[in-house]
């Protein structure tokens, strides 16, 4: 096993022997391991042998078309609400950092309002909006010019109500995340970009935001995962997303636990996919921050297989 430089120094000559000592015995650790194994085993045993759990029911409903529709709607709602949240968040954060108090003030007020009220209340509010604004129109205020208008009940469908409730609320949280990211970029970066003649917009877009991303992505991933599950609140305003889809089934067949397990499996699966997405996004925006990129799990596996093959052919 000696490398090229080691050949002239035989291992016995001059190299002291490695220390051989009796290691400390960690009896406490063995006790803890035993207890945990015992607990784990009993848990698995009880779940696997419990006839009342009826795993075949879970399997039967896992790919039920109604469940799949719910999954699709949950995904749609998560993606669109997060898109609204991110766009609003960036706008609010940039506004919040403006030196003009007439710009930063409203942003502060918005963030305060949406963080100060529960999202479930906001959802119910949008769902019932027709009670105070039966007619909604888009136009120029006060002069009576209207481009489009309609009844609130047709414009604000349950999906739109859920989207507004979740998206507008998310905007407030994203604003704080984006603001933290922007602040984290040193002033020297702005100095340098300004001295090169870049405009404020170019500096924000090309210099500050790409660097802020490194700080923004991890909590945004967290928000997305959180949104995926918070979207289940929309079941309260009768949007048939994953949770309400399962509820509708178990209200008929009286198997709530089995169907809640179905929902949990889907939520967990979707969350896991988001984990992977976040990992690669972080890697992308981590460019330049580390001297060398750590290998992705795939690269590590491939490298492992290669070295195994090389060992084998040797």
């Amino acid at each position, binding site marked *: 096993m000696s490398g090229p430089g080691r050949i002239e120094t035989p291992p016995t000559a001059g190299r002291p022997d490695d220390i051989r000592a009796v290691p400390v015995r960690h009896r406490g650790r063995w006790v803890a391991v035993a207890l945990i194994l015992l607990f784990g085993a009993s848990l698995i045993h009880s779940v696997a042998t419990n006839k009342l759990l009826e795993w075949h029911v879970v399997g039967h409903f896992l790919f039920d078309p109604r469940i799949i529709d719910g999954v699709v709607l949950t995904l749609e709602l998560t993606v669109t609400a997060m898109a609204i949240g991110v766009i609003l968040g960036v706008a609010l954060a940039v506004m919040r950092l403006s030196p003009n108090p007439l710009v930063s003030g409203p942003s502060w007020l918005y963030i305060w309002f949406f963080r100060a009220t529960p999202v479930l209340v906001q959802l119910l509010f949008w769902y019932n909006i027709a009670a105070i604004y039966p007619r909604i129109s888009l136009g120029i205020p006060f002069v009576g010019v209207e481009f489009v208008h309609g009844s609130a009940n047709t414009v604000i469908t349950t999906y739109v109500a859920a989207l507004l409730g979740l998206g507008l609320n998310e905007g407030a949280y994203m604003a704080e995340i984006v603001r933290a990211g922007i602040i984290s970029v040193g002033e020297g970066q702005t100095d340098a*970009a300004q001295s090169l003649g870049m405009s404020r917009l170019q500096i924000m877009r090309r210099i500050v935001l790409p660097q802020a991303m490194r700080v923004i992505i991890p909590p945004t991933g967290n928000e997305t995962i959180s949104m995926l599950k918070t979207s289940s609140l929309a079941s309260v305003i009768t949007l048939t997303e994953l949770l309400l889809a399962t509820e509708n089934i178990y209200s008929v067949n009286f198997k709530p636990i089995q169907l809640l397990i179905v929902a949990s499996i889907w939520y967990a699966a979707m969350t896991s996919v988001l984990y992977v997405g976040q990992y690669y996004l972080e890697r992308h925006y981590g460019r330049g921050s580390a001297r060398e990129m750590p290998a992705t799990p795939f690269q590590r596996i491939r490298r492992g297989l290669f070295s195994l093959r090389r060992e084998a052919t040797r």
Partner: protein
Amino acid sequence: MTEPMVRAEGVHKRFGRLEVLKGITLTVLPGEVMVLLGPSGSGKSTFLRCINHLEKINSGRLSVDGELVGYREAGDKLYELRESEIARKRAEIGMVFQHFNLFPHMTALENVMSAPIRVNKVPRERANAQARALLERVGLPDKLAAYPAQLSGGQQQRVAIARALAMEPKLMLFDEPTSALDPELVGDVLQAMKQLAGEGMTMIVVTHEMGFAAEVADTVVFMDDGMVVETGSPDRVLGDPRHERTRAFLSKVL
């Protein structure tokens, strides 16, 4: 008589109640290399930042290439320039910072290319070729694809010089370009600056490198407490300082 590249007349700058510049008057001619010396807190860096309007002056007159910095004069009134106009003027002045301030999310090549493409709307292929040539000129032809974090301080500072030169500036400002470097890395950066001076670039350099001042500067300005104490050729100011404060400073530095 040639129009000065930089003309400052009674330039004052305050941060709140702290007066940092207390009436700076000096001129820099085209092609001149001026070194600003002085203890920290004497206002050298602030003055440099005023020249490209990174800081706004409170009173006095400051002009670059015959045009006021940050304002337009019409009749006896001053009008503030729009941000886009200020940006256009900044684009003609290169600046190199103590802490390099390279864009960490871009490679060396992208750092040098970005401003010509975004600000001067230079076609990408031409900006690329020009950036390669500049990085070669500062001695980094093999670091095009390296990110700033993969470069030593001296290499980063040379990329920063190339980045400023890519905008083809008529004036270069150096704000303590070697102060953050390990001693053995200082030489390469000074070499690049010396080369630039030799090519006739107008330069204002804030530095503590007395050797550079003696060898490259046309004029040395000693500042203390927001004022110009002494101005002259390097031989004169460094070799035969007239003022007590200059002597005291030089005796500590040399």
